[in-house]
């Protein structure tokens, strides 16, 4: 155990520098802005979007300030516990709500605020024709505030508040155009799937409270080493369930595709860069717990691997551009989960991939939005083609993002994804082979479907309908895309050069010392094989979709069973329906019947009983004196008999 880290993490003894102590502003400013925008109403329509952008930018400024202060410190002194107020005070359980500013959380905060601000600026132009633009910005700010609360919280309970907040914001934003029923249904689906995951988080919190007596990170992690493995496994699995819900991992991934019903900036910010990565954050943050339970770690690995392949296979068959990108997100987060399950070193790479993915995926989404803007909100890729000449800037930014996600060196994706594949090959027994090969295969399939997307949209023959006149997007849209593209190019390299894993080490390796291991295959073999697979995938896609001779049918052609299944999201919705929705509805129906007949029946039965009894007793009131006399006599006899029995 690192004694130094323990005491520092536990006590937060170091004096917090100014920027760090002002970190609560990054939550407060967007939250206040959201409140103002929502409450001010139509009055704020003229300047609402500017306030939203300003709030997000202000949050970024404060975050950057704190980041530079952290940079100026020693490696072991970069963790601060900023207590805000006493939230729960009780005999058995008391909690101080506060923020924890350390390397992990500041990385997230920077990602969220930077990418978030760029997307805010993009949205000013993208939503310029929408009369509800002010409300959109209010929700975006609300989302930013909740996400920052999630990553900055110093206890699971504060994290949970942020968790729920982003779920709410996601719901509000997916269903932003709620006059379309299918969009509203998609929002509900997302919320419900998230809710299922929340159950996991609640169970984990309750177990933690029962066994550790506290929910704050410091207490839990300090006691995790001494707890029983079975308890930790339960917590780990429950947290994994929560992460699956939020990050759209198998088996709770069905909502992500439908979530594309929201406006494209929403898809970019929430469903690519930030919210869906909250699950990864949760797993990485709970590293001390996972490091002691091999079973839960294995579960994380399996989930990551399955989702990785799932997203890739589904992405190959999607004709909706945004849904293909959503499948891609799912798959990349599968990579992150896989990495997080590999232990502290893998967790660092998971975060690195998360950061780079945030940039290039957001860039891809913003580009998609630009294409949609140009093609009058069309999303069917079979109707695109040959847009490279019509939309140069978009083409370039998406090209860079595409190369990054493929993992072509020296772009960002190479540095993070390759490292993950390498890490997957580390271990004992069957695990490194299985997970490593899965990761490599996934890389190949990713290359194929991402290339398919790129070529179908920008290359090949133009398959537009007659009324389409594609044009480039306005500057407010292209500048953020360009900045993100820069990130796609450079971020990976920069992070690797400055030693991002080293930077995160005090967090990920706080409670466990891990020695470096070698992968079962030589590193160079892994790298080359991956590269070959990637290039093969891209070439295949070029031949099928991108080259001038490629015939891309307008209607989806008949295809084999796997493709058909992939078009149907590998029947996940059907499975959900059969296993969850139908039984749920049947249960509700049964409960309703129970409620009406048994519960209400009991209540009505009491009334009926009283009424019937009264009806019967009423017969005695027949008005005849003799009848009444008989009753009186009966009473007298009864009393006399009782007295007789008792006394004599």
């Amino acid at each position, binding site marked *: 155990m690192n004694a130094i880290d323990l005491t520092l993490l536990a006590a937060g003894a170091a004096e917090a520098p100014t920027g760090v102590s002002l970190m609560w502003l990054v939550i407060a400013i967007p939250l206040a802005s959201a409140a103002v925008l929502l409450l001010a109403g139509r009055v704020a329509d003229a300047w609402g979007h500017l306030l939203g952008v300003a709030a997000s930018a202000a949050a970024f400024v404060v975050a950057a300030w704190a980041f530079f202060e952290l940079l100026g410190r020693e490696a072991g002194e970069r963790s601060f516990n900023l207590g805000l107020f006493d939230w729960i005070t009780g005999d058995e359980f008391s909690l101080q709500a506060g923020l924890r500013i350390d390397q992990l959380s500041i990385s997230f905060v920077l990602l969220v605020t930077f990418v978030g601000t760029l997307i805010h600026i993009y949205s000013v132009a993208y939503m310029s024709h929408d009369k509800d633009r002010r409300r959109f910005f209010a929700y975006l700010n609300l989302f930013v505030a909740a996400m920052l609360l999630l990553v900055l919280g110093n206890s699971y309970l504060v994290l949970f508040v942020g968790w729920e907040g982003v779920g709410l914001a996601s719901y509000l934003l997916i269903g932003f155009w709620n006059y379309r029923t299918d969009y509203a249904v998609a929002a509900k689906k997302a919320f419900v799937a998230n809710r299922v995951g929340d159950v996991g988080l609640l169970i984990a919190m309750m177990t933690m409270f029962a066994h550790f007596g506290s929910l704050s990170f410091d207490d839990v992690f300090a006691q995790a080493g001494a707890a029983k493995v079975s308890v930790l496994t339960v917590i780990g699995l429950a947290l994994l369930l929560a992460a699956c819900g939020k990050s759209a991992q198998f088996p709770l991934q069905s909502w992500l595709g439908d979530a594309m019903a929201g406006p494209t900036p929403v898809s970019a910010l929430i469903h690519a860069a930030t919210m869906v990565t909250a699950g990864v954050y949760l797993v990485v943050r709970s590293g001390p717990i996972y490091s002691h339970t091999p079973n839960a770690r294995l579960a994380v690995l399996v989930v990551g691997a399955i989702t990785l392949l799932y997203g890739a296979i589904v992405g190959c068959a999607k004709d909706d551009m945004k849904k293909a990108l959503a499948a891609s997100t799912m798959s990349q987060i599968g990579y992150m989960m896989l990495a997080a399950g590999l232990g502290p070193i893998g967790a660092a790479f998971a975060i690195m991939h998360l950061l780079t993915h945030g940039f290039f995926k957001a860039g891809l989404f913003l580009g998609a939005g630009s294409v949609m803007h140009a093609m009058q909100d069309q999303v069917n890729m079979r109707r695109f083609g040959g847009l490279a000449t019509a939309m140069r800037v978009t083409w370039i930014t998406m090209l860079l993002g595409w190369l990054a996600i493929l993992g072509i060196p020296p772009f960002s994706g190479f540095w993070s994804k390759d490292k993950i594949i390498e890490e997957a090959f580390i271990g004992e027994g069957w695990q490194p082979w299985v997970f490593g090969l899965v990761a490599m295969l996934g890389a190949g399939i990713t290359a194929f479907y991402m290339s398919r997307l790129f070529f179908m949209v920008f290359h090949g023959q133009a398959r537009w309908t007659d009324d389409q006149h594609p044009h480039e997007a306005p500057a407010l849209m292209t500048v953020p895309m360009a900045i993100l593209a820069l990130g796609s190019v450079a971020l990976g390299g920069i992070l690797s050069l400055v030693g991002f894993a080293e930077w995160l080490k005090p967090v990920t390796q706080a409670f466990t010392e891990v020695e470096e291991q070698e992968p079962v295959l030589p590193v160079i073999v892994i790298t080359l094989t991956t590269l070959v697979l990637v290039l093969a995938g891209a070439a295949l896609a070029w031949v099928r979709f991108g080259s001038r001779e490629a015939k891309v049918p307008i209607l989806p052609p008949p295809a084999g069973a796997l493709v058909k299944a992939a078009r149907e999201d590998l029947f996940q919705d059907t499975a959900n329906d059969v296993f969850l929705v139908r039984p749920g509805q049947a249960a509700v129906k049964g409960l309703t019947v129970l409620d009406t007949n048994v519960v209400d029946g009991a209540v009505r039965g009491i009334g009926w009983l009283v009424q019937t009894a009264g009806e019967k007793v009423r017969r005695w009131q027949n*008005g*005849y004196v003799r009848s009444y006399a008989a009753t009186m006599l009966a009473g007298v006899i009864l009393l006399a008999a009782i007295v007789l029995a008792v006394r004599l």
Partner: protein
Amino acid sequence: MSVTAYLVLACVLFAIGGTTVLVRRNSIVVFMGIELMLNAANLAFLAFSRMWGTLDGQLAAFFVMVVAAAEVVVGLAIIVSLFRTRRTVSVDDESLLRH
């Protein structure tokens, strides 16, 4: 034993009077049944008075008789009044409290 004999006789008379009240429909006969019950009580009083050797029981019987007389007066006045208005002495016909 002897007191018991008188008591049993009183009980029998009381029971007969009570049954009369329940079974007969003519209100005057019902009233007579009530008088019979009072007499049975008197008999019991006197038997007990004899048993204790005091005259308090006889005094109680005396009062019972006085009150019975007053009661008969008023009761028969009621019956007469009812008869005048309704031309019937059946107790079943005085059933205005019927539901």
